[in-house]
């Protein structure tokens, strides 16, 4: 295996060094893989891709729904950039979103019909961030103090959050008489995020997401926090000697990640479902991990990739409706896309020679 690679190395290398080719080949590979799956299951590949495309971008309202999905997904992905930077697998995003949504709903239930909805909304945003951050912090402490691998801490807390939200929906916050998965009472219209004319796009969410993108970019690139996170992520032991406190930075990263996730949860409540439902997190927590991996932990790619994923998610609704194919196909496509990318990127890394070292 190794030897063969080395011999082909040179030739393939030249090709791989060229990014356009690189992206092209990975897309092609994924295309082939998914098409194979489709053909095996007796579905017509091309009409599938066509439907997904039409279903996500053909009309304004559809595009709106894509953006509606893009906002929370991107927020979660941005949050993950912090934790990945310090080499933490924050798998608890789902739970952090849920808690954010719960806090948001809590505030709204406190002041159902206040004269100043804007203020309440801001309060809700803020508290949801706090909530998400808090939940992430728990996972952080389990990691730093409790010595539980963050993956399992996150998972555990996801389950707990799941239990909590169910308890609220079936218990204290249930609708009179009924206890059902359909969630709590609808929140007052006044507190719904206002949408752009006949689309599902909440401008507020859009703006704040872009803000988060920008701030994170600066924070990670130009501040000691960014550098510290990276150093600790790469070698915690040595970072001590540079006067960094790994556990502190870990908690910090978790707080940032959790805060953004919590905010995403709040958007789901005020902008999408207008109530608290058990699956308020909509799987964005897990999807975001794929997004970040596929964008190779590079914040400049995150919004693009997550837009692509949102298109897949929204577009895939057409599959059952038009072609009577199950829409979990979108998940298959997303997964295999990331896998192929990982593989190709690894090849890329192995074929590129180690940096030359000359005395300056």
């Amino acid at each position: 295996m190794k030897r063969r690679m080395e011999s082909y190395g040179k030739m393939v290398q030249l090709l791989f060094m060229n990014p356009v080719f690189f992206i092209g080949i990975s897309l092609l590979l994924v295309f082939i893989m998914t098409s194979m799956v489709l053909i095996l299951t007796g579905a017509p590949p091309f009409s599938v891709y066509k439907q997904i495309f039409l279903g996500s971008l053909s009309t304004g309202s559809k595009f709106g729904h894509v953006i509606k999905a893009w906002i929370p997904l991107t927020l979660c992905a941005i949050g993950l950039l912090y934790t990945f930077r310090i080499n933490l697998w924050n798998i608890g995003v789902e739970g952090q979103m849920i808690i954010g949504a719960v806090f948001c709903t809590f505030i709204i239930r406190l002041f159902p019909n206040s004269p100043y909805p804007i203020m309440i909304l801001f309060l809700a945003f803020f508290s949801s961030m706090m909530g998400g951050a808090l939940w992430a912090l728990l996972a952080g402490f389990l990691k730093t103090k409790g010595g539980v691998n963050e993956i399992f801490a996150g998972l555990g807390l996801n389950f707990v959050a799941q239990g909590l939200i169910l308890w609220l929906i079936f218990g204290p916050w249930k609708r009179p008489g009924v206890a059902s998965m359909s969630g709590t009472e609808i929140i007052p219209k006044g507190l719904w995020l206002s949408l752009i004319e006949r689309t599902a796009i909440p401008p507020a969410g859009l703006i704040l997401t872009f803000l988060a993108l920008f701030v994170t970019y600066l924070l990670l690139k130009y501040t000691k926090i960014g550098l510290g996170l990276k150093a600790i992520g790469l070698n915690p032991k040595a970072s001590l000697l540079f006067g960094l406190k790994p556990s502190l930075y870990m908690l910090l990263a978790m707080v940032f990640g959790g805060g953004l996730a919590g905010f995403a949860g709040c958007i789901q409540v005020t902008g999408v479902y207008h109530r608290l439902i058990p699956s308020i997190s909509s799987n964005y927590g897990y999807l975001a991990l794929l997004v970040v991996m596929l964008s190779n932990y590079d914040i400049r790619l995150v919004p693009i990739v997550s837009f692509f994923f949102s298109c897949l998610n929204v577009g895939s609704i057409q599959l059952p409706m038009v072609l009577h194919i199950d829409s979990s196909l979108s998940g298959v496509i997303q997964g295999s896309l990331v896998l192929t990318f990982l593989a190709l990127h690894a090849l890329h890394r192995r074929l590129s020679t180690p940096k030359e070292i000359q005395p300056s």
Partner: protein
Amino acid sequence: AQPDQTFTFGLLLVGPMNDHGWSQAHFEAGKYVEEHLKSSKMLYIDKVNPADRPGITIPQLADDMIEKGARLIIANSDDMSDGIIEAATMHPDIYFIHVSGDGALTGKAPKNLSNVMGRMEYGKMMAGFAAAMTTKTGKIAYLGPLINDETRRLTVSCYLGARYAWEHVLKRKPSELQFEVSWIGFWFNIPGVTSDPTQVTGSFFNSGYDVVISGIDTSEASIVANQKRMAKKDVYAIPYDYKNACDGASAVCLGVPYYNWGPSYVDLISQTMKGNLKQQWLWLSPNWQDINNPDTSHVGFIKGPALSDIASKALDLFISDMGTGKIQLFKGPLNYQDGSVFLAPDEVANDKKIWYMEQLLSGMKGQSRVQ
């Protein structure tokens, strides 16, 4: 598609269209419409619940179907009420039908939304009756979904049917009949969210209950009963919702109460085509002459292979008596679980009273509402 030739209607199914239960019944009703109203065409999407389709909302799907030319949209789950009302308000020129809701009754819903429901109460009474005729231990269990008015009244009907058989046909002491409900939390199993129906049914059988009546959309009850039967246990199950639910579980299946939505759909849709659909709240009864008539009866009960002849004969009599009104089970004196009066002696419940069933009845074990 040009609206004048073909009339497109959309169907939002809460579960899988092949769930052998509630959603499949609706799906097949849709097919029934397509063949009886030649110019009609069905659009459908199944698994419309946030667990299966994260991030997808009812209004979003409605938008999509309307873009595809749908002019009437049917939502088949109580849980869709908010979404469907939201959608109906957004598209006043499109007709919406919400199955099993009460928006039209309470006036919450806009004018272009109607409700339709079948009187499954009767079906459930027959189920309860069959169960009581069959049980040896006198312990009947009900595998309940989530707790709301609808599920409460269905469970209660089951109990009334069972009690009638127990006291008036078998002439046994009321105290010897045990009827317990266990709510799993949703219409089907969601791991880590609902109780696991497989486990619940299993432990019912393990603790002496020998008939389990399923109130949920999926077939765990029959499957587990089958397994127990393979292990030489004398147990029975009564599935729910779907004509052919007994297939494959014939050894244990006492029969199945089911909805037959076809006729009501045809009726509503043809009205819409003519453009004279008024907002209404329908609660449709079986056709007592022939409860299993696919074109006229809205609710039916198909006897299962495991039902004994005696029981079967008694059941026929029970059905005809209900048809003639000789037997009226929603008749006082009946008390709620907490002892408060549901029906005074000889009082016969009106629709509203039945529809908004507040609690289970005294004599039934299980939660009436979430504490």
